[in-house]
C-alpha cells in the first residue's frame, strides 16, 4: 500500500486551495490527489462560458498544465470507493489502497435530478461538468427548442447561453419567482424582466408534468397543461453534497460532511471542504452546505494549514453570488430577507426599474449588515462584504450605502482608519 502524508479526494477548487495551501507551509510532504474524472483540473463554473464561445476548451483548465508536477502531487485517476478512518486508508475502484496521514474530502456535489420519469433520455443534461458541456455542444446544432428545469443561478445561466445559441428557450421554475432562495422579490422581477426582454419564456409556478419521446425527449407537457416541443432539456435545480465516502464511517453528516471552523470532520485527521461539506456560515452562525466557489477554495486552503499543523479558522464563509444575465449584473451576500423587513430587520433600499438598478441592505438591530443585494451597479461590492465580516455598525451612514460611489470615505474617521489601519500612512502632518 502506498501511503502519503496528505491525500485529497476530489480535483476542483477545494483540491487546488488545499494543494496551494500545503505547499506554502510544507514543501516536502507527499501529496496525492484522487480524481475520478480523467481530466486535468478544470473549472465547472466555466461551463456556461465555454458553451457561449467565450473561451476555448483549454481555457477551462483552472491551473496550468504543469500544476501537479510543480506542486509535486501524485495524480491518481480513479474513483475512491471506500474510506477506512481507523486504518487511515482509501480504497480505489481498481482495488488499490492509498494510505493517508491527513485526508481532505473535496468530493463536491452531484446535480439533483427530480424523480420525473424520462430524465434518463439522451438529450437531457445537467449543467455541471465538462462532459455535460461537450454533450450539450454536440446536441445543439440540431436543436431548436430548449427547456430549462430550474430558475436558479445554474438554470438561468444555461437559459442565457442557449438563447444566444439561437434556441427558443423555456425556463420552468416551481416557485412563484426566479432565484427565490438567493434574492428578494424586487431583484427577481428585474431578472425576470431582463429574460423576457431578451425573448426567453419564463414559466414560474410551473414544472414538468410528463416527458414524451422514445430515447430522446421530444415534447414536454407542463403542469399548466400546455405541451411544448423540446430538443434539449437542461436540469438545473441544484446540487446535493456528495457524502458517500463518509457514509458508514464515524464521520458526522448533516446534509453535507460536517466540519468545524478548522475544516475538520468528526473523524481524526479527516478534513472536508467545498460542495460536499457543511461549513460554518458567519452570518447565521449555523453549519450547512455553502456550495460556492470561494468557499470551496478558501475552505481547502484553511484545511491545508490545519492539516500541516498550523491552526487556522475559516470564519468568513457565507452565501454569496456574483451573477450576470444579459446586461444585468447582480451581486448578493448573506441573508436574503424578503418583503419590507420589519421585526428584527431594518431594510435600506432603492430601486430604479427603468435603469434596472437596485441596492438593498439588511441591517440587524445593532446596525450590522447581514445581507445585501446590488443589481445594475455592482462596483466595489466587496466593501459591503467586508463591512459585514467586520460587523461594522453602519447606522451612522446608513443612507449613504445607497450611493453608487460608496467607499471607505463614507465611514466615520475612526472607523475608516481602523479598517484601513495597515493600508494608509497617517500622522505625517
Amino acid at each position, binding site marked *: 500500500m502506498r501511503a502519503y502524508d496528505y491525500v485529497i479526494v476530489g480535483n476542483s477548487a477545494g483540491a487546488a486551495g488545499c494543494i496551494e495551501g500545503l505547499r506554502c507551509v510544507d514543501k516536502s510532504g507527499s501529496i496525492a490527489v484522487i480524481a475520478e474524472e480523467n481530466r486535468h483540473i478544470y473549472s465547472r463554473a466555466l461551463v456556461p462560458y465555454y458553451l457561449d464561445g467565450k473561451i476555448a476548451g483549454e481555457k477551462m483548465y483552472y491551473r496550468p498544465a504543469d500544476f501537479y508536477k510543480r506542486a509535486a502531487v501524485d495524480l491518481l485517476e480513479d474513483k475512491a470507493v471506500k474510506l477506512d478512518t481507523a486504518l487511515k486508508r482509501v480504497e480505489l475502484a481498481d482495488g488499490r489502497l492509498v494510505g493517508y496521514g491527513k485526508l481532505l474530502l473535496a468530493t463536491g456535489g452531484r446535480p439533483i435530478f427530480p424523480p420525473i420519469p424520462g430524465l434518463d433520455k439522451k438529450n437531457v443534461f445537467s449543467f455541471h461538468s465538462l462532459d455535460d458541456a461537450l454533450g450539450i455542444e454536440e446536441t445543439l446544432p440540431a436543436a431548436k427548442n430548449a427547456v430549462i428545469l430550474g430558475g436558479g443561478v445554474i438554470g438561468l445561466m444555461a437559459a442565457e447561453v442557449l438563447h444566444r445559441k439561437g434556441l427558443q428557450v423555456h425556463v420552468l421554475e416551481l416557485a412563484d419567482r426566479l432565484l427565490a432562495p438567493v434574492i428578494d422579490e424586487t431583484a427577481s422581477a428585474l431578472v425576470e424582466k431582463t429574460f423576457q426582454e431578451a425573448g426567453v419564456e419564463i414559466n414560474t409556478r410551473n414544472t414538468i408534468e410528463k416527458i414524451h419521446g422514445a430515447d430522446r425527449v421530444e415534447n414536454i407537457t407542463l403542469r399548466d397543461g400546455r405541451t411544448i416541443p423540446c430538443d434539449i432539456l437542461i436540469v438545473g435545480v441544484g446540487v446535493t453534497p456528495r457524502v458517500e465516502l463518509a457514509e458508514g464511517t464515524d464521520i458526522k453528516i448533516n446534509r453535507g460532511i460536517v466540519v468545524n471552523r478548522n475544516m475538520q470532520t468528526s473523524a481524526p485527521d479527516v478534513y472536508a471542504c467545498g460542495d460536499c461539506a457543511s461549513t460554518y456560515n458567519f452570518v447565521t452562525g449555523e453549519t450547512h452546505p455553502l456550495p460556492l466557489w470561494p468557499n470551496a477554495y478558501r475552505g481547502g486552503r484553511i484545511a491545508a494549514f490545519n492539516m500541516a499543523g498550523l491552526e487556522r479558522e475559516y470564519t468568513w464563509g457565507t452565501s454569496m453570488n456574483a451573477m450576470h444575465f444579459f446586461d444585468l449584473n447582480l*451581486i448578493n451576500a448573506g441573508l436574503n430577507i424578503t418583503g419590507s423587513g420589519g421585526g428584527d430587520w431594518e431594510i435600506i433600499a432603492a430601486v430604479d426599474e427603468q435603469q434596472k438598478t437596485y441596492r438593498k441592505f439588511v441591517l440587524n438591530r445593532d446596525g450590522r449588515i447581514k445581507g445585501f443585494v446590488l443589481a445594475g451597479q*455592482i462596483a466595489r461590492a*466587496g466593501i459591503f462584504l*467586508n463591512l459585514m465580516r467586520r460587523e461594522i455598525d453602519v447606522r451612522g451612514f446608513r443612507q449613504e450605502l445607497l450611493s453608487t460611489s460608496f467607499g471607505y470615505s463614507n465611514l466615520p*474617521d475612526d472607523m475608516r482608519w481602523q479598517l484601513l489601519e495597515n493600508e494608509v500612512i497617517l500622522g505625517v502632518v
Partner: protein
Amino acid sequence: MGRVVAKPEVCIGCRLCEIWCSVAHSRSRNIIKTFLYEEKKPFPRVTVEEKLPLTFAIQCRHCAEPDCVAACIGGALFKDPASGRVVHDREKCVGCYSCVLTCPYGSIVVDPKRREVFKCDLCAGLDELYCVSHCPNEALVYVPEE
C-alpha cells in the same frame, strides 16, 4: 514585492494618480495620445475616494491571503509566489465579477461595457510606479514588503 500606500492627510484630490495610471496602462504611454487618440481608453486601476475635505487613493493591496484569488472561477487571478504580486491574467478572465464581490477594498475596477476587470499590477514591466512618481504632493509612496 510591496505595495503602494496613501498618505490621506497630504492628498489634495487632484486625481493625477488615476490619470497617470491610465497612461501607464495605455498603448502609447503618452498622456496626450492616451486621452485624445487611443480608441480603448485604459481604466485607472487606482481609485481616489473623496468626501471633502477628505481624499485619498486606494488600489490593490496585494493581500497575503487574497480573497479575489480564492473567488476567481477561472484561475485568472493568482498570487505570484516569487514577487508577491496578485496578478490578473486577462486572457483567462471571463468577467464573472466574483473578485468584485470579494475584494474588501473595492480595488478591482470594472468596465461594465466590455465585461472586463482591471487591477493594480504595480506597473509590471515599467521602470517606475506611475501613480507614485507623478503624485505632486508625495501622497503616494511605495512600501516594500517587510
